[in-house]
């Protein structure tokens, strides 16, 4: 356990030193601040509650941004160290492979969480000072972001182990990101139109994608109005009820966090550096 913590701490320090990570965290902070400011400016005109409006904008930012950083960071984690040889050095220490793998994942998750929390924290203070409002919604969004980070970071880690070289991992990570964020959306819409799918099938297609699950969860936290929720969300609500739907989506996200991680670990144990 001590080894896991040590490796995690090392990972966090590495992240802090990495310009890429700082850049990503800074970009997230700036974008979320900009969105809050715009949301508040709009709220004054239209008289809408600032918090939910900002949260809605933040949700979209999170859904685009979190998969992007986590896939890239997770992807570069093991493959990068494998290429520059530092992984061999770590493995030469008296630690098990499981400890190294877990430590790297947890360390990266902690770094990403800190970046996200920093972004959200500043935004929350700014918005909270200006308006006050539904803090639960905001906290739900933070929790959702952490959950999504865990899921997509796990995907990134799996890619890292499977691809084993920086160049290939970057390619795979960006392809996966594009798929999660755009292609699966477009595919679902296209199939729905072309094959006149029933709402149940659209729902099943949508939740295949963890980003979509997170989107439905996030929308649910923001508003239960039917027009905001859309047909997929309505179907889920009708079929599973609110608690059931939340439980289903959360467990899907947890599964996305666990399954690639375990698959990655089994590869890591047997194949990476004999």
């Amino acid at each position, binding site marked *: 356990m001590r080894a896991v913590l040590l490796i995690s701490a090392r990972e966090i320090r590495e992240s802090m030193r990495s310009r890429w990570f700082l850049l990503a965290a800074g970009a997230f902070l700036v974008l979320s601040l900009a969105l809050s400011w715009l949301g508040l400016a709009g709220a004054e005109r239209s008289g809408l509650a600032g918090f939910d409006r900002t949260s809605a904008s933040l949700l979209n930012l999170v859904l685009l941004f979190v998969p992007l950083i986590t896939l890239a960071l997770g992807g570069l984690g093991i493959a990068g160290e494998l290429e520059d040889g530092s992984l061999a050095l770590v493995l030469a220490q008296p630690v098990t492979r499981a400890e190294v793998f877990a430590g790297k994942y947890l360390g990266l998750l902690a770094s990403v969480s800190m970046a996200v929390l920093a972004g959200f924290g500043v935004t929350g203070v700014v918005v909270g000072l200006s308006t006050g409002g539904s803090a639960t919604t905001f906290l739900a969004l933070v929790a959702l972001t952490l959950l999504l980070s865990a899921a997509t970071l796990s995907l990134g880690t799996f890619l890292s182990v*499977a*691809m*084993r070289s920086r160049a*290939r991992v970057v390619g*795979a990570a960006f392809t996966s990101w594009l798929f999660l964020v755009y292609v699966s959306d477009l*595919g679902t819409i296209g*199939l729905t139109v072309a*094959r*006149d*799918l*029933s709402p*149940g*099938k659209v729902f*099943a*297609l949508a939740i*295949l994608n963890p980003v979509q699950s997170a989107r439905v969860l996030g929308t649910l936290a923001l508003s239960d109005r*039917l027009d905001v929720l859309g047909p997929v969300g309505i179907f889920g609500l*009708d079929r599973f009820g609110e608690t059931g739907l939340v439980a289903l989506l959360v467990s899907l996200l947890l599964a996305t966090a666990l399954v690639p991680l375990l698959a990655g670990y089994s*590869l890591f144990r047997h*194949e990476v550096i004999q």
Partner: protein
Amino acid sequence: MNRRVLVAVPLVLAAIAGAVVFFPSGGAGPEPIVYGRDACAHCRMVISQPGFGGEVRDLSGKISTFDDVGCLLISLAATGRETPEAWVEDFDGKTTFAPLLQATLVRGALDTPMGHGIVAFADAGKAAAFAAEKKAKVVKLEDLLVELKSGSFAVAQAKPFTQLEAERGKDIFERECSSCHGARGAGDGPAAAFLDPKPRDFTKKTFKFRTTESGKPPLTEDVLATLERGLPGSAMPSFAFLSLEDRRKAGAYVFKLSGLLGKPEPPAFPDPGTPPSTTTAGLERGKALYSSQGCVACHGETGRGDGMSAATLKDNAGQPVRPRDFTTGIFRGGAESRDVYYRIFAGIDGTPMPSFAESVTEEDERWALVSYVKSLVSATPAPLPSNPILAGRMVAEKYGCGGCHVLDDGKGGEVGPAYALVGKKLQPEWIRTFLHDPRATGKIYPWRIHRMPGLKLSEPEIDAMVAYVGTVGKFKASANTNPDATSFPEAKLAVGKNVFVLRCAQCHALGSIVKTPLASQQGPDLANVAGRLDYAWMKGWILDPKSFDPKSKMTVPGITPDEADAVRMFVWKMSMEEQTKPATGSLGGAP
């Protein structure tokens, strides 16, 4: 390793997605309707009342919900999908479903969400009891579907027209009705001057064909019935080619013009029920009533409309009117016994035909008179005379052709082309095809506001009109041959192409070759030329259009006979090619 992953992961994802998409939709039977949220697939309204609606599951497993059994049936008849599964809500159990085929349907003046007046019961006994209580009838599904297939759904109790419908009906009225009834509905459209009987002046609020008491405005469904059936034997065609929604909009606009919109409807004339069967004794009594009630005075002894005072009759606008000739079997307000009953006992307002409701009060006497009037219809209609001019005039009078077209005597409206011109320029075969279904051809003259109505001429009447138009146009039968387009010399076609591009394409479209000409006033799409126009006539027309039609806007100054010949060949050949192309774009026959 990484290659395996690269292939395996996307493959697995694609397989899961494919399984989801093609997974046979599970579940049989209806799904519960969520009231206040699910919408009717036919009328698009949110379903709020349990007990009236239903569901259809199509072959792909998709469920459509309906708020009214009537909406469900209309949708079933219209889509014609093969054996979809359908359920209707049990009116007794409210939210429980019964398979449509096993349900008992009750129809009558029932207050259902969309006013179709049909409810369903799972239990036949309860249905019968309900029908008896509400004075409604148990009806068969097949009968309802047949009624729907024939394009009409006589709504048991039509909902009153709404302001919104009236607003949306303005465009339809101006397009379909204003040529005769005028833009303000005052019966003063451009065709009105030549019509007999005259088109109705809606601003006078007098309506002929009603199921309300004499002197009262019509019911919503009376107007809808006239729009759907037309007035046979007059220039008012059936508008059944419009959707029921569009007919409602047009009718609503008529009510608006009459100032009747939003006014409470008068009580309906007592429903006469189903006509009893005709008996010899009944006919005898009817004949006696026909004389004693004074029908003879106008309609004549034999019902030919030649009674003593027939020639002196005038309507409320001071126009002479003729009493109906019963022998023709044509009844303006419908030829069913019930229709004739309403005409006699609700009267025909605005004409000398009064209501006989006061003078004949016994129900069986009334039906006796109706059956006698119907017995005057001669079994075989008189054949049209052999003289093409006389025969054509008869047909033209019957359908009011002269309202829009100038006839052989030089009189008539200018809403459509004059017969003298049409008879020269068009091929008889094309006219024949056109008259079979005037709406199928699409709009030929882009500048004309109105369109030829969908008249339903009989086969002999079409023959008579083709002969008539040909005779009026002094058509030379020998000239009516399609040229052999393969023999057109290439050099001439090349000249023709140049002339077309430089002179004709300014105003004329040519199928997919010239889709939108520059000029604001456009001529007809020349893709319609081959098979429609007379080839010989074309040359003369191109050289001097004004000699055929002084009002034509077409002008081609300085064109030589050789050029005219060449461009005629080019246009003919191109339009032949355009016509053999699959119907897309401008040739699609957009209305």
